[in-house]
């Protein structure tokens, strides 16, 4: 409300009385609010400007106080193969070569001249439906474009907010499922309040012929899409697009604004950042602001702007809190915050005491019992190492880390590990059955739980061979037969 009043450009000595008056007016007849809104269709544009488009997780420069302009958006559609996760590839259909598509940033009153270009190598016609458009099909009607052609249409952005755009060509669901969506931001008059960091994150669900993790080029599976049973639920188009080196970053004390979209096609997202409370959420990307929110619901084809200040350093995990999607299907990203600790806000671990009401017990994970593509035998040591690395990245990476260095005090290292190199049968047994209790690795004592892994003998052999051939270990080769022998003991 304050922002809107500011935009009236009242002189400061009038402001207080005007504010008081406005409050009275609002209280007495709240339903007049709508009619008092600016008629944004009347905003005049001056000059032509080329829109800055950015690939996720980046966003273009804030609009700030610039005047409304004629804004040229040049967007190219590309159908291209990409990596869904280690060893799994997929043919994505993209706006601007990325999933989600390029971020478009406008302000209310802009006249957007949209150039939609369908690359000649593409197989299919496409179009674009922008939820920021007031007009038939959100622009889809006038942007249906054959391969090797370019369509141009224009629209005036009337409503501030964060909006999804997507392809709407038949079969619509398939175009969306293949990654054809993105976000367009319409800033209010005067722009959004400045923050320190801004990022672009968009969830999507993907449906492949093979099961999650099955290697190779995976075609789209229409039946799974109709059944709404995705194999992958991810942020920014692939598993791990926002983890490790690709994590988004901030420094302690900074304010972070996330433009979060949900491309769908099917799932609704319960967006949550583990260890953060959103100070401010623009509910559904609109004008309503909610404060102090833990998890915000983002419908398919909807968006949300969340803002928060980061108080302490660490890695903050972003998830869809429909939590199996996060840890089993890929909907997981990281925000890495650097800076000074503040023990008053968060102490970290203070003590580790033993508590055993019913004795130690090995946790177990269910086995699928199904033979999948992942059980296809590796034909050479090279393949063993390749497949082993894929399994490592999917299964072991989170605890033992990318270079096998482990996490001090919590997860033992695999790099140069005396424990690993000493006894191969024992190592196989640990992967097969899990391990609990105290062990000593390279002179350090660890006391944690490793759950038994539901891996096939092939996978166990591959991942251990990979570990033995990495990070200064003994280069031992583990075969599926060795694994079966240990398993049958």
């Amino acid at each position: 409300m304050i922002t809107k009043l500011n935009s009236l450009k009242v002189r400061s000595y009038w402001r207080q009385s005007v504010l008081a008056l406005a409050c009275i007016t609002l209280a007495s007849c709240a339903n007049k609010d709508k009619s008092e809104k600016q008629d944004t269709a009347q905003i005049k544009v001056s000059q032509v400007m080329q829109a800055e488009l950015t690939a996720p997780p980046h966003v273009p420069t804030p609009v700030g106080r610039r005047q409304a302009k004629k804004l040229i958006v040049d967007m190219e559609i590309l159908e291209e193969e990409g990596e869904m996760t280690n060893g799994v590839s997929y043919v994505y259909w993209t706006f601007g070569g990325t999933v989600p598509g390029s971020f478009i940033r406008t302000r209310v009153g802009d006249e957007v001249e949209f150039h939609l270009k369908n690359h000649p190598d593409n197989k299919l016609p496409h179009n674009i439906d922008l939820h920021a458009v007031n007009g038939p099909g959100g622009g889809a009607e006038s942007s249906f474009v054959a391969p090797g052609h370019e369509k141009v249409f224009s629209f005036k952005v009337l409503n501030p907010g964060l909006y999804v755009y997507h392809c709407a060509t038949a079969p619509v669901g398939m175009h969306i499922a293949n990654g054809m969506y993105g976000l367009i931001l319409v800033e209010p008059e005067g722009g959004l309040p400045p923050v320190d960091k801004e990022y672009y994150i968009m969830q999507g669900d993907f449906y492949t012929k093979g099961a999650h993790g099955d290697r190779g080029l995976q075609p789209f599976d229409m039946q799974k899409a109709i059944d709404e049973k995705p194999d992958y639920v991810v942020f920014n188009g692939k598993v791990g697009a926002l983890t490790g080196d690709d994590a988004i970053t901030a420094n302690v004390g900074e304010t972070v604004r996330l433009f979060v979209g949900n491309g769908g096609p099917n799932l609704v997202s319960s967006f949550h950042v583990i260890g953060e409370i959103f100070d401010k959420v623009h509910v559904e990307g609109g004008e309503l602001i909610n404060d102090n929110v833990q998890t915000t619901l983002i419908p398919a084809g909807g968006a949300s702007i969340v803002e928060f200040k980061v108080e302490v350093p660490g890695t903050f995990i972003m998830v869809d809190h429909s939590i199996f999607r996060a840890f089993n299907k890929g909907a997981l990203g990281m925000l890495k915050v650097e800076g000074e600790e503040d023990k008053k806000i968060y102490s970290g671990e203070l003590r580790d005491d033993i508590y055993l009401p019913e004795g130690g017990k090995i946790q177990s994970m269910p086995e699928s019992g199904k033979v999948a593509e992942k059980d296809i035998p590796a034909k050479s040591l090279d393949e063993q190492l390749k497949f082993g690395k894929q399994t490592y990245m999917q299964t072991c990476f989170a605890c033992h880390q990318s270079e096998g260095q482990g996490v001090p005090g919590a997860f033992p290292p695999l790099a140069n590990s005396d424990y690993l190199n000493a006894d191969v049968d024992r190592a196989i047994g640990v992967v097969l059955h899990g391990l609990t209790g105290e062990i000593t690795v390279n002179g350090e004592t660890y006391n944690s739980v490793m759950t038994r892994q539901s891996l096939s003998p092939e996978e166990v052999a591959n991942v251990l061979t990979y570990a033995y051939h990495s990070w200064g270990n003994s280069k031992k080769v583990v075969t599926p037969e060795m694994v079966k022998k240990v398993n049958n003991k």
Partner: protein
Amino acid sequence: MLVRTCLMFCIAFTIQVTAFAQTSEGMAEIKGGSYIPLYGRDSAVVKVNDFLMDRYPVTNKEYQAFVIKYPEWQKSKAKQLFVDATYLRNWKNDTELKDSEKPESPITYISWFAAKKYCECQGKRLPTVDEWEYVAMADEEIADARVKESYNQKILSWYEVPRTNTYEVGRNPENYWGIYDLHGLVWEWTSDFNSILITGESRKDVDKDANLFCGSAAIGATDLMNYAAFMRYAFRGSISARYSIKNLGFRCVKDVEIE
């Protein structure tokens, strides 16, 4: 009424012309029948007459022979009314392909007008959408393979392979009718490609396609799983007769004598 009269005349005329024609070399006989197209309802059974269809899409080499014989269809001479700027874009000059192109690959970058003319000059014509779809629903074994999962899978898999237009014709196994490459190489022009409209907006923003594609493009369709066909209809809806496209070629058909 007028249309019907004309149609009758045309058919009569065609019969006269083709009465002596043999089953041309390179064409296969298609036994007509009834089928329900993707966009139809139970009542919308379409009847297809017997006809002959080219076994292969028209190749670069064949089209080369055509433009040598009919220079008005050469790249630099074709009327702008009938072709757009990308017509024969992969040709070096009026009569030669670029070195990167193969003579036995399907001709692409071709407008509907040019394709239509090519067929006419062979005493043939472009297939109708119904004829094309009727033959294209066959796999190697049966005439209507749309019920098979493998049928859809095969078609869809080529959508995911880029630049299949550079392959040579005859790469895919012949189907039930002895026809090659209806799926797997290039899209193909049909005579009435835009008579069925998937509009720019495929979710019923207009009423003209009320029987075809409602909701998210599928409610009125007979076979909701045949989404490969949706893509063909969508493709056809996105083009105009002047367009020349990298992935779009054609083949010809011919009527057979009606008893």
